[in-house]
């Protein structure tokens, strides 16, 4: 079976990426929805999926010292490149926040006073929601390797798509341009960047386009709330045409989108006949027609 993966990202946060992903997921037809904004997963609030599976995700390890063995030789301090080991009142101390989990201190300690403990508080959930299947990751606060968790969430989404014969996979990605974003877009059929008509929005869009072109991905741009600054909105449109980026369309600011969220619905579910719902479904058809 053919599968169609669409990733929705934004560069700048708060442009309306998740609201638009939610709308795409409820236009009709069954979908697999993968919430890859693992730092701030939100779509489960709207869709309240059943929990069918829960998996523990190990994000990495942290070093701990056994003071009954430590001789204060400071060799670990010398070797650590993350400034995570220091002397605190004459005793070797490991700063949990700075520790990168590289294990070098554990390997070189001459008296085996250092051991590694696993960070095992992050989870991946999957289940059913009203328009199909849903997978989402929840990174425990302060844990890293969000890119890897994104990969696992996407892998699961692909598996579900195959097992349940669902063609469309919709990926709600994280903001930024770092590892989690890269993991959310590689190998997808379409990347949709949701931006807003602000100077920050435009600059962040440019950095995000650099990333999508690095990976040779078919990229689309949506300007959300374009009427908040039509002048910058026009600038973004001309930037897209200069760079030959597919322009998918623009949406007006509409307080109904927030009202829908408060009612735990996508805008499509809340008011399918509204101008904004019609425009979103046009945009979805445009993206999927090529």
């Amino acid at each position, binding site marked *: 079976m053919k599968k169609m993966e669409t990733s929705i990202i*934004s*560069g*700048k*946060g*708060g*442009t309306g990426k*998740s609201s638009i992903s939610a709308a795409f997921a409820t236009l009709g037809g069954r979908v697999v929805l993968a919430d890859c904004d*693992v*730092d*701030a997963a*939100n779509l489960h*609030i*709207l869709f309240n999926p059943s929990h069918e599976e829960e998996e523990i995700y190990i994000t990495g*390890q942290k070093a701990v010292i056994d003071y009954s063995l430590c001789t204060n030789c400071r060799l670990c301090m010398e*070797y650590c*490149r*993350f*400034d995570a080991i220091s002397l605190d009142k004459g005793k070797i101390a490991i700063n949990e*926040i700075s520790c*990168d*989990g*590289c*294990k*070098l201190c554990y*390997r*070189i300690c001459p008296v085996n006073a250092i051991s590694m403990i696993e960070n095992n508080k992050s989870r991946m959930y999957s289940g059913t929601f009203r328009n199909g299947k849903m997978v989402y990751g929840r*990174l425990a*606060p*302060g*844990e*890293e390797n*969000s*890119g890897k968790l994104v990969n696992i969430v996407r892998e699961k989404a692909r598996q579900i798509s195959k097992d349940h014969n669902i063609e469309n996979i919709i990926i709600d990605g*994280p*903001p*930024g*341009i*770092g*590892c989690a*974003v890269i993991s959310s877009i590689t190998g997808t059929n379409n990347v949709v960047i949701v931006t*807003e*008509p*602000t*100077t*920050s*929005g435009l*600059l*962040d869009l440019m*950095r995000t386009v*650099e*990333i999508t072109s*690095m990976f040779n991905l078919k990229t689309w741009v949506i300007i959300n709330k374009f009427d*908040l*600054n039509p002048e*910058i909105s026009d600038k973004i449109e001309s930037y897209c045409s200069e760079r030959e980026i597919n322009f998918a369309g623009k949406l007006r600011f509409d*307080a109904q989108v*927030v009202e829908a*969220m*408060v009612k*735990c619905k996508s805008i499509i579910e809340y008011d399918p006949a509204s101008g904004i719902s019609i425009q979103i479904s046009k945009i979805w058809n445009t993206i999927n027609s090529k």
Partner: protein
Amino acid sequence: MIESGKIRIAIASGKGGTGKTLISTNLFYALQQLNYKVTLIDCDAEEPNVMIFFREEEEFVHDVTQKVPVIDTTKCTFCGKCLEYCSYNAIFMLRDMKIIRILEDLCHGCGACSVACKYDSVSEKDISLGKVTRYHSDLQSSIIEAKLRVGVFSPVSVIKAAIKEAGNNEIILMDSPPGTSCPFIQTVAVADYVILVTEPTPFGLSDLKQSVDTLKTMNKSYGVIINRAGLGDKTVYEYLSNENIPLLAEIPFDKEIASLYSKGEIVAKHNIVWMDLFETMFNTIYEKNGNINN
């Protein structure tokens, strides 16, 4: 950590786009006008936007680099010890075909492979992760920007370098990256107080809760600013009052604010009420958090 007359405040939000940068740039401007010596660090290295709001001159730039290994294949015996030591799967080797490659994107520069190699075949080179730029604002104040190179996976080293650059001798404001993972933690770890910016929506509330849970485990003091008040619902307010979290300020949803912000303008320059708002807020925070344990 705090010395008398000094404070570090991080401006953060779980959810992106809640108005973090709006708050940090306006607070910076207000304090500057009040003749404080203040440094603003843009720690959102993936998408730094603070400098959109200022026209200051660049004072200097320095590169942030990381070490990555280089393998001398004439000395390498393909024993696989470096692979075993690497915690990041950054070394790829096919023993039979005598192929060994470094995947630089995955390397964290920990140096474990150099220690592992008994044949002296691992040396190191520097690769660029991004830049830290200092902008001179006036005699008293400056802005420091952390900027990740596009394509680099983690912004943490660039953020740390920017914080180091600011030193420790004035009022420091930090525009934090969104989320609650490592870039956020690295920024708030050095803060004496955290201002969390949220919006009164279910998404805003959910992300706020996650930020609060993180700050609790870190034993940080914090308060909340609600931006775009008037949109959404009341659940954020209920949460704040149930949890006894101080509401520092409310900023109404207002098309004029949105429009000024969209053009890269400082709202406090145009609106005297904002000057008062930020001065009062800073004084409240400073009284409670600016003079504890020297």
